[in-house]
C-alpha cells in the first residue's frame, strides 16, 4: 500500500505532455550533430598526441655531421629501472683536427634497447648528457616477431618499418 503522492499543477502538466520523455529525446537528437562526433578514423587520420607523450625510443644523430650523439657513457643503462638498455663501447684512436694529434676516445659500438620490457618512464632521456636517447611521440610499437622487440642501434636511429595505410 503506497500513500498517494500529490502533484502540483506544473508537475501534472509536464506528466500529461510527457515532457520528461521529450526532453530525453531532444538530448539524443542533438547529440547526432556531426560536430559532436568523437571518433577519430585512426589509420586514416592520425590522432593528436600530447606534447609530453613518451613513446618509441630514438637515438639522435648530429644533424650536421651525421654522427651519433651518443658518447657511450652508459648513464642511460644505469638509470633504467628495467635494465633493458645495453650499451657496448669501444675505445678507438681518432685524429683530432684542432690539435692535429691522434687521440683515444670511447665510441659507441652497439646499442640494444628491449622495448618489450620498457615502461616508457623516460629516465634514460632525462639522464642523457648529450640528448642522444629520446622518447618520441611514435606509438605504433606492435610487431609480429618477439625477437624484433629488441631494437638495435639502426632501428633506434631510423625507426621500425610501420605498415603504411593508403586509404
Amino acid at each position: 500500500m503506497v500513500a498517494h503522492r500529490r502533484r502540483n499543477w506544473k508537475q501534472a502538466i509536464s506528466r500529461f505532455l510527457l515532457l520528461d520523455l521529450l526532453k530525453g529525446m531532444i538530448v539524443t537528437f542533438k547529440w547526432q550533430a556531426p560536430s559532436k562526433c568523437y571518433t577519430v578514423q585512426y589509420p586514416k587520420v592520425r590522432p593528436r598526441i600530447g606534447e609530453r607523450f613518451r613513446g618509441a625510443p630514438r637515438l639522435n644523430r648530429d644533424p650536421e655531421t651525421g654522427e651519433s650523439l651518443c658518447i657511450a657513457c652508459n648513464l642511460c643503462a644505469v638509470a633504467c629501472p628495467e635494465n633493458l638498455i645495453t650499451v657496448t663501447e669501444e675505445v678507438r684512436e681518432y685524429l683530432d683536427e684542432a690539435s692535429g694529434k691522434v687521440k683515444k676516445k670511447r665510441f659507441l659500438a652497439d646499442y640494444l634497447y628491449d622495448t618489450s620490457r620498457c615502461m616508457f618512464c623516460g629516465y634514460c632521456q632525462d639522464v642523457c648528457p648529450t640528448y642522444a636517447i629520446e622518447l618520441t611521440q611514435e606509438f605504433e610499437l606492435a610487431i609480429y616477431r618477439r625477437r624484433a622487440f629488441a631494437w638495435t642501434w639502426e632501428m633506434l636511429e631510423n625507426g621500425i618499418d610501420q605498415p603504411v595505410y593508403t586509404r
Partner: protein
Amino acid sequence: MEFVERIISNPVMMEYVWKPLVVILILLFIVLTLVAYLVYAERKVSAFIQARLGPMRVGPYGLLQPLADLIKLILKEDIIPAQGDRGIFKFAPILSVVCALVVLAVIPFGWGVATITDINIGLLFILSVSSVGILGIILGGWASNSKYPLLGALRSSAQMVSYEVAMALALVGPLMFAKSLSMTAIVEAQRTDHIWYLLYQPVAFLVFLVAGVAETNRTPFDLPEAEAELVAGFHTEYSGFRWSLYFLAEYTNMLISSAIAVTVFLGGWSFPFLDRLRPEHPGLFTLLSIFVFAVKVFVLIYMFMWFRWTFPRYRYDQLMDLGWKWMIPAALANILITGAIIMIGQETLGLTKVVGGEYGERLVVPGLAGKAYFIGMAWLVLVPMTWFILAMINRRSYDFNLRAQRQIRLPERPATEDVFGKV
C-alpha cells in the same frame, strides 16, 4: 514437352502462379535488402546518438557492411543444443520469418501496381498473422532447453499478448471513419477526404506507436531479449543463419508496424497536391506514391530507432502496468469518446455523410466546418478526457518516473510491540 509447355502458357497458371511468383521474388528482394540496410541504419543512428561514426570501413561510409554481415552470418557454425528439441528448434525461426513476410502482401506500398493485393480484411489479416509470429519466439525459447531462452520466451508471450490487445483496439478509432478493414480503402478514404487520421485520432496514434514498439521487441520494451538480464533472451542458443532469421523477422516486423501506422494514421501513399499528376502521368504518380510511402515509413522507423537509443528498458511490472493500466484503457476510452464525437457530429450537427464508393461505404466529412469540428474535438476534448480517465484509473498506482517513485511517502509502519504486544 508439350505438357510442360501447356502448363507454362496456361492462362490460369499465368494469373495465379507465374505472375505472383515474379511479384513475390521482386518484393522479397527489395524487402530483404531493405532490412539489411535497416540494420546498417540502426547501427549508424545508434552511433550518431552516442557521438560515434558507426561502420565506416567496408565500402564508402560502410555501405557494404550489410553484405559483410551476411557473409559472416552464413559462414558461422550452426549450433543446435544437444538436449534441445531439434525439430522445433529448426522450425521456430522459420515460423517467425514467414509470419513477418506474409504480411507484406497486403500492405499498399503505393498506387496501382505497387498495391500488390487488396483483400477486404487486410488489417485483420495483418493482426492475426503477425500474432502467430509470437509462436516462433515461444517455440524457439522452449526448444532451446535452456533457462534464459525460456525466460525470454515467457516474457515475450506475456508482453505480446497484452500489447496486441491495445494495438488492435487503437486501430478501431480510425476504422470508425474509414468503415473498412481493407488497407487500400483506408488510404482511399483519407485521400479523398484530404485528411490524415492522425489529426482525428491522436490518442490512438500514440497508443499504436507504443504498442508497435512493444510488439517488435524493441527498447524500451525489449524484455524478451534484455541483453543485460537474459544474455540474449529467446535467441540465446541460436547462431549463424538461424539467428539471422530471427533478426530478419524483428526488422521486418518493425517495417510492418511502421507501414500500418503510415497507412492508417498518416494517409498511406497519398500526399496533398500530388493527385493532380495522376491523370496525366500515371507512371510518375505510381513512383511518387511509392516514394511518399517510403519517406513516411522511414520517418517512423527513425523514430523507433530514436526511441531505442533514448529510453532505458522498463522493469517487467512497469511493462505490464503500462500495457494493462494505460494502453488498453486509453484505447478503450478512445473508442468510446470517438464514437460519441462521431454521433454528435453526424446526428446533431449533420457534418458528415456516408457515401458508397469503390470500396464500400465510408464516412465522409465534407467542408471545413466538419474537419475543424473533428480535429478540434480530437485535440481539445478527446485527449484531455482520455488523460483524465487514465489519471483516475492510475490514481493510486506507481509512478513510472523513478525519481518521483523515490519520493513516494510510505505509510508509517506500526511498531512491532503495538501489533503483537510485549514479547
